[in-house]
């Protein structure tokens, strides 16, 4: 089983959607929230995902397709 740490950023349109519930329900992925700041117009959640590499990737692709931004928890690692 693999683990991946990610950060989801929700826009105003997405902030009320049960994205993390569906990620855990529709994919074979365990979600473990560690830190979050969710407000009415914007929000972010830092969480750990556990599952097979393929299933985590499938789940993250789905999250990205919903319009939620997915980033590594350390922020952008490509620097100028």
């Amino acid at each position: 089983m693999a683990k991946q740490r990610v950060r989801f950023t929700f826009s105003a349109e997405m902030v009320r959607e049960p994205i993390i519930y569906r990620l855990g329900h529709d994919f074979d992925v365990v979600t473990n929230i560690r830190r979050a700041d969710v407000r009415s117009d914007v929000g972010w959640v830092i969480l750990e995902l556990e599952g097979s590499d393929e299933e985590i990737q499938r789940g993250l692709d789905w999250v990205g397709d919903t319009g939620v931004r997915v980033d590594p928890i350390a922020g952008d690692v490509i620097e100028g």
Partner: protein
Amino acid sequence: MAFVKGLKCRECGREYPGEPLNVCDFCFGPLEVIYDYVTISEVVTHQRIADGPISIWRYQDLLPASADDPVDIMAGYTPLLKARNLGKKLGLNNLYIKNDSVNPSFSFKDRVVSVAATKAVEFGYETLACASTGNLACSVAAHAARAGIDAVVFIPADLERGKVIGAAVYNPTLVAVEGTYDEVNRLCSEVSDNYPWAFVNINMRPYYAEGSKTLGYEVAEQLGWRVPDHVVVPSASGAMFTKIWKGFNELACLGLLDGVDPQPFGADQNTVHHPAVTTRMHMAQAAGCCPIVTAWENQQNQIRPVRPDSIAKSLAIGNPADGIYSLRVIRESGGSGYAVPESQVVEGIKLLAETEGIFTETAGGVTVSTLKYLAETGAIGADELAVAYITGNGLKTQEAVEEVVNPLHIKPMMGSFEEALENRMAARV
């Protein structure tokens, strides 16, 4: 020797030993170095600093790696130039340029990479790595060469050849990744989890970032151990911005600023603010990638990541790791943020070159245009002491200013020369 006590989470405060870690296991918050400032205060003096090398390692007592055998290509101690011509143009009588474009690999990255590389060797790593679109790649490859260890540098596959050569010449393993910016970003994060390499800005990040404090120390030392009224700093991840502020406050708390009484650092070393540090911290970003400035302008407490679309590639970080912390520094210092319109980036480059003879890259254009805005709006007073940080060399982004090449084309005859010269002079009038 380094006076490091360990690492501490900026969010939950949990402490860790001084190992190659960058994220808190509990809350996934970023880790920062914590120091034994009591011992440091017994050791560090102006004289000890002055007796040190002419590089960042003169501040060895305040850096997190041992200076016994640093990986040093002589980064730092760059010129602080009184900018009379630019100052006159902007109505600023006390303007200085910190010219960090003259570092060995031509950007401020040499400061942070020197610390990260030294720490990596200390930890026993045999490979130094990074993902970069320019300056960081050059610096990592150069320092690995100096240390005699391997370098692996990830670059986007479509990176301009001119930028690749500056890193390739040091003979690292160059990995050109095909894919979007986000895909390259994600891959490099995964690689760092799976390979026993020192990624300077990932698992070495707490140590790496501390190198930027030297930009604060040097300016204070070069000004005669005082801090400026204003600084203008280009920002991407926001790390350098926070570390310059930290550098000023460390000097003040240790009693190293002239006429300033020392004070204890308190429980949170990384947010300490000595009242004698009255510097206003101004952040410069380009409009095509300005998530921190946008949050400041909108009085938000969150940074909303953006997709970068800017000619200032070295500032193009859409999801800045230290965004929220740099936002706090802007507010605490009474500073500001400005998003330079993309069209004014090149104007800033040209203005600095034409007035002070310094050729900077696009990030420097962002800084100078921000400085101009601050002067024009009265945010910086005519007689206040202001320092603008120029962090990279113009030779790296020559394509941005190609339009300046406009020679007089003549035949090899005096008549041809004089005619062309006369026409040019007439055109200027």
